[in-house]
Structures are given as structure tokens and as C-alpha cells.
């Protein structure tokens, strides 16, 4: 398995390898950089277009190129490549059902000190209401790299959200991409379902719970839409307590998606949802500080679960 500097590196190195052989693979960036772009500029400059600070136009241009059978990736920081141009995504991409791949960098509080303008805690809830759009939210560089070849071939619009900077590696093997989630620890009476950067934290909380006699499983849900409902329902049959952990608003994200499945399919399970609150966060000091304020840090979640699961 190749090694990548970070998730961004995984995305663009994989695209570059394919783009070298296929001149119809194009990246549009709204003036957002990436290390691999130097390779594009030196070797295949025609396939990297900096459209400037104009995200609405970028989505429309991508749609037009996709309509003419180009395989297009658009790229910017998450709030700007999602909410800023939401209607263009809804109409130009999703209504027309064109296979444009939206790559957003900076999931959750990746850009912690840049404030609410750069925080990406609303995008999952909003984007998952758009018909035809797939949402991928991988937890590490290795799984991210495995999604790219699929996106190049896929005929569906897709949104891939990635973290900024180095992240702990979860996988040393291939994931079963189309299943949409991976069971990292076998499901027990208690199962944690997490996504993105919070999968690593969930594994630590899982260990903490085991130490106090609460056996539990961990699922990495890297495809948030469509959720593999059938397989999830089957997988969760023996689980009584389901915990969702995400660095995304408690309104509309993974926890909400799972709650919809539970309401539709089960009547005997408890759900404990952990996510960011319905608030703008102005506090400075970094991601860990924000997690503490939101009670999304390892200790806060563990203590809360210890209390709730022992009741």
C-alpha cells in the first residue's frame, strides 16, 4: 500500500496517476492549492485549471464539461465548495445528474482557528438532502486513496470531504468500498458508529469502555449517502446501544441518518448521538480546545457514556 502525506495528498496523487493516462480527467480548483499540483503543472498543465475565486462559476463549468464526457473534480475549502455554491450543485450537477466530483478540504474543525466561516459542521446535513449526490467521508489517507478510482469511473455526482493535515492511519488493507462502511471491531451489545476524523477517537473511546467492562464494536461509516441501510440493519441486529460520534452538527449528520434507520427499522435500541452543537464557535486555541468546549473530546464522551450505559 502506498504511503501518503495526508488525505489531500492521497486524493490528488491518485487523480494524477489516472490523469496522466486520460486527458479527459480534469481538476478545477477555486484557487486552493495542493502539493501534487506541481506535478500537474509540470507534466499535464492542461488538466489543472485554476478558475479563480469564483465557486459558483466553477460548479457550472464542471457541469458543462461533465456533460461533454470529461471527468471533472472541483476543489476548494468545504464551506466554499458546498454552501457558497449550493444552488449550482443542486441544479447544475444534481438536477442534471452529471458525474462531477466535489472535493472539499477541511472537514469539521480542521480550520479551527479560522472561525465559523471556515468550519465545516453543516455541510453533511445540507448536502445529504440533494438527490443523486453520493457523500464520502473517509477516515484516513489509505481509504481515501481507494475511493478515487471509483469516483473517476462513477456516473453519479459525488461529494468527497477530507480532513486537513496529517491524520492517523486506520487501514493497512483494502476496504470493501461499495459496502459503504467497515467493521473495525466486531459489533457487540454496544456499537460505536463514526465517520471521518472521529473514527480514530472512537477507537480510543472503545478501548476506554472495554476497560470498565463495556464490550463494544466500532464501525467506520465512510459513505454517508447512500447509507447501506440493509447491511447496517443486519449488522446492528444484536446491538442494543448505538453510539454515533462525528465532528459535524448534531442536526442532520451521521447521527441523524442513523436515527432515521432506527425509527424505520427497530423499536428496541437506544441511540446516543455525539456531534457539534447548534452553535457557531468563535473560540480560538485549536481543534482540541473546540472539542473540549463541545464535549466531543475523548474524556467527555467516555464519562458521558459511562454514566448513560451503566444506568
Amino acid at each position, binding site marked *: 500500500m502506498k504511503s501518503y502525506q495526508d488525505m489531500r495528498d492521497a486524493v490528488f496523487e491518485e487523480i494524477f496517476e489516472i490523469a496522466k493516462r486520460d486527458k479527459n480527467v480534469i481538476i478545477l480548483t477555486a484557487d486552493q492549492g495542493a502539493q501534487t499540483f506541481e506535478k500537474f503543472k509540470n507534466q499535464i498543465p*492542461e488538466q489543472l485549471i485554476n*478558475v*479563480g475565486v*469564483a465557486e*459558483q*462559476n*466553477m*460548479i*457550472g*463549468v*464542471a*457541469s*458543462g*464539461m*461533465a*456533460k*461533454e*464526457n*470529461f471527468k471533472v473534480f472541483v476543489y476548494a475549502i468545504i464551506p466554499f465548495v458546498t454552501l457558497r455554491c449550493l*444552488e*449550482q450543485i443542486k*441544479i*447544475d450537477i444534481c*438536477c*442534471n445528474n452529471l458525474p462531477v466530483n466535489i472535493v472539499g478540504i477541511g472537514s469539521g474543525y480542521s480550520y479551527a482557528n479560522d472561525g465559523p466561516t471556515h468550519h465545516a459542521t453543516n455541510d453533511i446535513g445540507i448536502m445529504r438532502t440533494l438527490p443523486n449526490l453520493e457523500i464520502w467521508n473517509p477516515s484516513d489517507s489509505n481509504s481515501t486513496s481507494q475511493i478515487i478510482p471509483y469516483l473517476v469511473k462513477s456516473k453519479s455526482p459525488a461529494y468527497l470531504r477530507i480532513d486537513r493535515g496529517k491524520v492517523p492511519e486506520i487501514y493497512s488493507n483494502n476496504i470493501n468500498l461499495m459496502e459503504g462502511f467497515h467493521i473495525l471491531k466486531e459489533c457487540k451489545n454496544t456499537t460505536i458508529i463514526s465517520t471521518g476524523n472521529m473514527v480514530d477517537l472512537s477507537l480510543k473511546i472503545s478501548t476506554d469502555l472495554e476497560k470498565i467492562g463495556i464490550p463494544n464494536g466500532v464501525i467506520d461509516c465512510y459513505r454517508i449517502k447512500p447509507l447501506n441501510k440493509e447491511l447496517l440493519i443486519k449488522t446492528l441486529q444484536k446491538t442494543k446501544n448505538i453510539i454515533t460520534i462525528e465532528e459535524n452538527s448534531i442536526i442532520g449528520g451521521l447521527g441523524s441518518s442513523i436515527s432515521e434507520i432506527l425509527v424505520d427499522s427497530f423499536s428496541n435500541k437506544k441511540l446516543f448521538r455525539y456531534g457539534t452543537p447548534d452553535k457557531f464557535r468563535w473560540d480560538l486555541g485549536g481543534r482540541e480546545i473546540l472539542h473540549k468546549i463541545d464535549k466531543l473530546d475523548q474524556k467527555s464522551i467516555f464519562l458521558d457514556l459511562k454514566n448513560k450505559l451503566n444506568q
Partner: protein
Amino acid sequence: MPNLENNLISTLKTKSDWVRLSTIEMVLNAGSGHLGGSFSVADILVSLLYHPELNFFEGHDKDRIILSKGHSSLSIYPILADKQLINIEDLSNYNQSGSILGGHPDTRVPGIEITTGSLGHGLSVACGIALALKRSKKKSKIFAILGDGECQEGSVWESAQFASHHHLNNLTVIVDNNGISATDFTENTINIEPLEKKWNSFGWDSMVINGHSIEDLIKTLNKTPKTNKKPRALIAKTIKGKGVSFMENNPHFHHGLPNEKEIILAKKELSS
């Protein structure tokens, strides 16, 4: 040749009248529709889609049209029916249950390239198609028809910058410059003039034309830009509600419907 041109122009004028009459019937059946802007753009659509040197509907290298002011879909449907892309009987089901002919055009309708309806989208998609066509070495031309009220949308100018930066000389914008948006004259809401200078200053080859002169439109539409590397903007001076005296220049008829007496008068004027 002059005779052929005269015959063509005479035929197309008759087509424009027929398109407007058809839209009146469609709107009456449906009880809704945007007549004013459909009438102002009718001569432009007819001149484009029946142009002897343009081909929008057949082959790998066909030309492309995007009706960015999608609320004027009323005027394109009769033409698609006349071109046998849809059934002529379907026009009577416009905006009704089971029909694919909606108040705004979508890609279920043969001949419609992209779904439009929200203003300020069509030009950016047209830019993407234009760039793709150039990269694929296709000689097709692409036309995007915008409303003048639509030019109040900031996204239009993002796309205008992109098109000139990338020398998209296969792209023509036609602005249906009728001076009225949904509720009022544009000069009373946000003044959009001087449109010709604005497009020029954004790096386009811009010119004003008479949007109701089939002769001028036929002579102009298939031309390449004066400066070869620039995209082209045609500011087509038009009259909202063109063809029916009491609808002309009347903001009410953006989405308002004529009453029974007015319908009789409108049909009479369009048939004369």
C-alpha cells in the same frame, strides 16, 4: 440568393407569429406561464433554431443552445414540436400532470441541453461546454440566452470573466434586453446598463442588435467574433410582450395572464 433569403425571412416571420399564438393556447390550457419574456425572445429563438447555417439537433458536431432564462420555455416548445423532437399534441398538455413540458425546461425534453429555471446558471454551464468542445476539437458553436434582469446575478459576471480569460470564441451570449424583470423595469430596481460596455469591458466582443429583426438576427447569429479570441455578446434590444399591443412593455405580463377579452384581442393581433 436574395430571393432565397427573402423567402427564408418571410417564412421565419410566420414561424414567430405561430410560436406566439401557440404559447397563448398553451398558457390558456395550463392556466399559467410566462408570456412576456417568451414573446420578447421568440424572434431570437426562431432565428437561431431555424438558421440555415446552424444545426442544433443532429450529429456529433451539433451546435448547442442553453436557454438560461428558463422561464421563457413556452417559446421553445412549439419549435421543438415543429422540428418533430416532441409531439405537437404534447403542447396542449404544457404544465399539466403527466407532461414533460414544464414552466421551466429540463433535460427530459429532447433538444433541451440542461435544466434551467434559476437565473444565473446557464452561462457557467455554457462556458464548461464551450471549453470542452474546444478541447475535443469540435467546431460546434454554443449559444446561451440570458435575460437582462438575469444580468443582475453576480454569477453571470463570474462566468463572463472565465469565458474571456479562456478565449471561448465558440460561445455567444444573447441578452434578451427587454428592460423588464419580474415585477418592474430594471432601471427602477438595479440599473444594468450600459450592457454593451459592460460585456466589452469583461473582454467580450459585444454589440447591440435588434432582437425583433429576423433579417438582422439571421445575418448576425452565425458570424464569428470580430476579434477571433473573444467570446461574443449580442445585446438584443427587445420588447417584453412583443406582438400584442396591450402586453408590450407591461411588467404585469411577466407572469400575468390575459383575460377573456384580452385573449381574443391578442389572437387577433397575432393573426393579422
